[in-house]
């Protein structure tokens, strides 16, 4: 009865619906064009000479081939050094994600399965630490990393190992929290069976638990990955703005500071900086969106 009513109502109301649908489509399209405008501006101005931009900021490129001239200017510029920055960003992001996801899932599993007051305390401490903002630890962190680095003869400043270790420290609390929530819902029976079959504790984790918690890895990788890839302040403090290791945000900012506003070249540098993550998004869009939504709700 109710269903029939809906059908009747829909048929009766199909005309105003259609008008509303078109209105909504136009509004959405206009809003979308507005949202995409900055990207269009980047692409168009990457194809122009600096003189063109200064004479007429709003204008179309005279010669699309200028794009290649600009790219090669920026590409080989020692202040930007795109390939080297790309390499450093990839190394730091990939290795940080590897240690964060593996070590956090290991810790979360032990914390869930061990119902002692110690594991409860540790978990509470990780949760509480999530409110600590980077700003309150950043200055002491630099001096402390220097002291420790000198002591163990492994540099923690201006080095890959130092910044990856720091990302583990800053990323693990939220990651353990997310893994913890998921592992609580994993049935214990499988692990008990593995135990009886003589599987070691480590073997149980890597062979039984790890495959079961794969979905939540996506969340942890996406949330940490976007943050680390785009992070500016931690690399600035631990790697320095003129060090040998430079991530993409450091390179873009360094390049921008090195010139008296050569906007065409700055636009090319932002274009190059955007491309890797946008290309990744084209392929992994489903996972990235899923990861962001799950991460925010947990």
């Amino acid at each position, binding site marked *: 009865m109710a269903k029939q009513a809906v059908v009747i109502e829909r048929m009766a109301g199909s005309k105003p619906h259609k008008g509303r*649908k078109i209105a909504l489509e136009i509004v959405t399209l206009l*809003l979308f064009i507005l949202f995409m405008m900055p990207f269009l501006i980047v692409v168009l101005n990457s194809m122009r000479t600096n003189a063109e931009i200064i004479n007429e*900021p709003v204008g179309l490129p005279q010669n699309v081939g200028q794009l290649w001239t600009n790219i090669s200017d920026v590409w080989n510029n020692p202040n930007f050094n795109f390939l080297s920055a790309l390499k450093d960003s990839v190394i730091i992001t990939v290795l940080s994600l590897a240690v964060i996801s593996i*070590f956090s899932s290991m810790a979360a599993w*032990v914390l869930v399965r061990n119902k002692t007051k110690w594991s409860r305390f540790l978990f509470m401490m990780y949760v509480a630490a999530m409110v600590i*903002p980077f700003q309150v630890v950043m200055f002491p962190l630099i001096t*402390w990393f220097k002291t420790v680095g000198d002591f163990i003869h492994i540099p923690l400043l201006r080095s890959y190992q130092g910044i990856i270790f720091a990302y583990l*420290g800053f990323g693990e609390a939220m990651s353990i929290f997310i893994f913890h929530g998921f592992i609580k819902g994993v049935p214990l029976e499988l692990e008990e069976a593995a135990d009886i079959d003589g599987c070691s504790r480590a073997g149980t984790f890597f062979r039984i638990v790890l495959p079961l918690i794969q979905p939540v890895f996506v969340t942890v990788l996406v949330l940490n990955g976007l943050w680390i890839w785009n992070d500016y302040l931690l690399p600035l403090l631990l790697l320095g703005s003129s060090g040998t290791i430079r991530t993409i945000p450091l390179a873009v900012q360094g390049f921008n500071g090195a010139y008296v506003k050569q906007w065409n070249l700055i636009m090319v540098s932002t274009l190059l900086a955007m491309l890797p993550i946008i290309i990744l998004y084209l392929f992994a869009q489903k996972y990235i969106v899923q990861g962001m939504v799950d991460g925010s*709700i947990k």
Partner: protein
Amino acid sequence: MTSKQKRKLTEALFLLPTLLAFVMVIIIPFIYGIYYSFTNWQGTGAATAWVGLDNYKAIFQEPAFLHSFLVTLLFTVLNVISVNVVAFVISLLVTSEIRGRNVYRAGFFVPNLIGGIVLGLVWQFIFSNILPQIGTAIGSKLLSKSLISNKDTVMATMVIVNTWQYAGYIMLIYVASIQGISKSVLEAAEVDGATYWKRITRIQIPLMANAFTISLFLTLTNSFKMYDVNVALTNGGPTAVFMRKPVQASELLALNIYQTAFKYNNMAQGQAKAVIFFVVLTIFSIIQVSYNKSKEIEA
């Protein structure tokens, strides 16, 4: 070694890497950080002496810091409203019956993929080159000069850029929430003659309460901690006058903390500001947790 000991050892080894990083990266620097804020620490190996509350007294008499604090609160309020309103409107659009919903959803999220430094530079170009030319062409006095170098409009540019960057992310949260509302509820309302507007305000919005809470607190902390867009877009400028002293019109707290330490070489006062920053964020979190608790009881 018995199997029980072996098991304990494995578990301890599993906890070790994260615990080590946590202690070395968060706990020890945090304790040092609190301690340094009560000293004349200079960031080097030089001797540090206890100065009690001197740093705190000094920063609360400093116009630049007080101004930065107020500007950060202003930015946070405006930005929370702006991001959530825009995100909510987009989420309604991309969950309506329009064609190409999925493309739009994916597209609106794209700005969120890109870092604040890169976005800040792009928008700096837009505000200082593109808009002034359009402003001149249409004869608008306001737009014909860069909105970034005008102390009265510079905060608006920060809100515009951050809304553009963040709304796509918050939209995803609202979309997930809208999709969780059962279709039959909305259809029943339609049958009962509820208008489009009524269905949104009386049914969708109340059922999305949880998503609103999440989004509000996410944007709240995100806005309060804003740093990289600030650096790349305005770098704190232009100059304004506050308490009869020159201050930076758009210098948010995170940038003010950094500049105190590295531009003005006052590590101890920078650290004291960071501790205040931490205290405010902790208050936000306590409010959030107690709010969520009270809602759980209601439900």
